[in-house]
C-alpha cells in the first residue's frame, strides 16, 4: 500500500480508536431523533379556524426549519473539522510522533495527502450518513424531501472539507490550538462577510457586495453554504424570491440562485491550491 494510503488509514483508525466516530454517531442519533420529533409537530399545526395546514404550507415551513437545522449541522461539522485538523500535523511534530515515520522512505507530501484524505473521507462519510439520516427523518415526519438532496449533502460536505483544508494548512506551521482557532474565526468571518455581501445586494451597494464576493473567493465555505440552501428550497419559494429582484437576494438564510459554475470551478482550484500550499509549507518546515 502506498505510504499516503497507509497514513490515510492510520488517520481513520485513530478517529475510530479514540472513539470520535462513536461519539459522533451517538450525538447524531440524539439530534436526528429530537429534530424528527420537532418536524413532526409542524404537521400538527392548525390554522385559526382549526383546520390543518395545507401541504404547501407544511412544505414551506419544513424547508425553512430544515435550513436552520442544516445551518447548525454544517456549523458543527465545520467546527469539528477545524478542531480536528488544527493539530493534525503540528500535534504530531510537537509530540515527536512523526520523527520516526519521516525517517522512513516517506515523502512529506505523502503525509499531508494521506492525512487530508483520511479526514476528508471521515467528513464526507459523516456528512452523507448524518445528512441522509436527517433527511430521512424529516421525510418520515412531514413527508417533505428537499428538491436536491444529493447536491445538499455535497455542498455541506464540501463546506466541512474547506475548514478541514484550512485547518490542516495552518497546522503545518502553527500549534494545534492556534490553527484550529484561526480556522474557526476565518469560517465565522467568511459567513459574516457573506451576510455583508447580501446586504450590499439588497442596498445595491457595489462595495459591500464585493466584500461577499472576495470572501467567497478567499474562503468558499459561505458560498458552498448558499449552494446547500438553494438545494433545500422549494421551487415556489425560489420563484417568489426571484420575483422580488435585488431585495429577494438580500437574505443570508435564502438563495434565489444556485452557485455560479465559475464559483464551483474556483472551489476545485481552491482545494488544489490549499493542498499544494500545505505540501510546500510542510516540506519546507524543519522538524
Amino acid at each position: 500500500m502506498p505510504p499516503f494510503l497507509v497514513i490515510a488509514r492510520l488517520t481513520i483508525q485513530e478517529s475510530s480508536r479514540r472513539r470520535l466516530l462513536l461519539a459522533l454517531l451517538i450525538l447524531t442519533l440524539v439530534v436526528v431523533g429530537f429534530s424528527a420529533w420537532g418536524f413532526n409537530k409542524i404537521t400538527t399545526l392548525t390554522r385559526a379556524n382549526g383546520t390543518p395546514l395545507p401541504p404547501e404550507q407544511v412544505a414551506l415551513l419544513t424547508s425553512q426549519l430544515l435550513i436552520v437545522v442544516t445551518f447548525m449541522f454544517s456549523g458543527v461539522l465545520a467546527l469539528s473539522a477545524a478542531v480536528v485538523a488544527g493539530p493534525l500535523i503540528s500535534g504530531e511534530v510537537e509530540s515527536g510522533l512523526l520523527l520516526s515515520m519521516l525517517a522512513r522512505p516517506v515523502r512529506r507530501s505523502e503525509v499531508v495527502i494521506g492525512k487530508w484524505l483520511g479526514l476528508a473521507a471521515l467528513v464526507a462519510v459523516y456528512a452523507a450518513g448524518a445528512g441522509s439520516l436527517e433527511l430521512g427523518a424529516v421525510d418520515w415526519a412531514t413527508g417533505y424531501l428537499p428538491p436536491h438532496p444529493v447536491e445538499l449533502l455535497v455542498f455541506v460536505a464540501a463546506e466541512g472539507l474547506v475548514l478541514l483544508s484550512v485547518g490542516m494548512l495552518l497546522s503545518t506551521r502553527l500549534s494545534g490550538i492556534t490553527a484550529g482557532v484561526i480556522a474557526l474565526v476565518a469560517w465565522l468571518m467568511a459567513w459574516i462577510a457573506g451576510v455583508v455581501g447580501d446586504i450590499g445586494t439588497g442596498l445595491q451597494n457595489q462595495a459591500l457586495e464585493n466584500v461577499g464576493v472576495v470572501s467567497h473567493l478567499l474562503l468558499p465555505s459561505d458560498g458552498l453554504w448558499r449552494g446547500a440552501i438553494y438545494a433545500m428550497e422549494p421551487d415556489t419559494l425560489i420563484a417568489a424570491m426571484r420575483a422580488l429582484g435585488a431585495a429577494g437576494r438580500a437574505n443570508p438564510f435564502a438563495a434565489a440562485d444556485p452557485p455560479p459554475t465559475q464559483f464551483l470551478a474556483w472551489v476545485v482550484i481552491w482545494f488544489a491550491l490549499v493542498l499544494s500550499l500545505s505540501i510546500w509549507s510542510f516540506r519546507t518546515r524543519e522538524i
Partner: protein
Amino acid sequence: MAEVAEKTEAAASPGAAAGTPAVKTVELRKKFGRTVALAGLSMTVPRGEVFGFLGPNGAGKTTAVKLLLGLLTPTSGEGWLLGKRLGDLGTRRHIGYLPELFRYQAWLTASEVLTLHCELAPLPRASWKDEIRTVLETVGLTERANDRVGTFSKGMQQRLGLGAALLGEPELVFLDEPTSALDPVGRHDVREIIRGLASRGTAVFLNSHLLSEVEQVCDRVAVVDHGRVIAEGTMDDLLGGTAVRVRVAGLAQADKNQLAKFGRIDDEGEQLTFASLDPGRVPELVATIVSMGGRVYEVAPRHQTLEDRFLQLLEDEEK
C-alpha cells in the same frame, strides 16, 4: 527557506555503494536564525562501526542526527549516508532511527506500531510476522505485543522505539539517547543489542551523554561541543592517559590551585583526581603535596575514563 531534502537517486540501493562509509560529512553547518547549532561537522563513520557521538546538552548532537536523516536541511556543507547524499529516500530503507523524543501511536498495540513501520519501511509483507516477533523478543516486549502503547511506561515505549529501529536488519542505525528512560537492566539490554548489531556488521551511530555506556560499546567516538567536533578517535586514542586519584587532607584551596600545574584536577574535597598525569610524575606530586603540609592517605593511579577525558576536553575548550 531551503526545501527539506527529499530525493530519490537512481539505483538508490546502498548495495551499489558498498564500500562507502556508513556516514560521511564535510563541513556540515546548521544555523537557526542567528544561533549556530552545528559549526562545520566533518566526520566519517565506517560501515559496521559503533560510533559514539558525545557532547553536553545543547552541543548539537540531535541537530546532527536530524541533518543526517534529512529531517533538517543543512545551511551549508554536504553529507552522505551509505554512499548516497543526505535526504535520499531510497537510503532510508536501510536505516533505523530511535529519536530522542520517542513517541508512538498510543491507540495502536505494540505489534500494530511495528506493522506500521514494516509497511512504511517498506519490508516484504511475507517477512513482517517474523520481523515483528524477532524485534519484540529482542527488546523484551513479547508479552506486551497486543497491549496498547498508551498503557506502556516510558521505558517500554523506548524499547518499542528501539524495536522499530531494528526492523528489516538496517545497515545503519541511529540511536539518539537510547537509554534515557531505561532502568539499569534496560541499559544493559541496549548495550547487548548494540553489540549484536555490531556483530552482524550494522553501523551504529550512538548519540549519548551517558559516557560509561559509550565507553563500553563504542569503537570510536567524537566529542562535540558548541556545534563542532573537539576530539575524535578510537577509545585507545582518546583514553591514552592515566588518571591519578589522591586522598589527601590538610590542603588549603590556594594549595590546590597550585597543584593545577599537574593538570586538570577534579576536586571532591579530600579526594583529588588528576585527570591526565604521567605516572612518572606521581612521586613529584606526592612530594609537592607533603611540602605544602598535606597528609597523603592514598595514591591510586588508574586508566583515564571517558568521563575524565570528556571533562578535560570541555575544560580545554572553555580556555
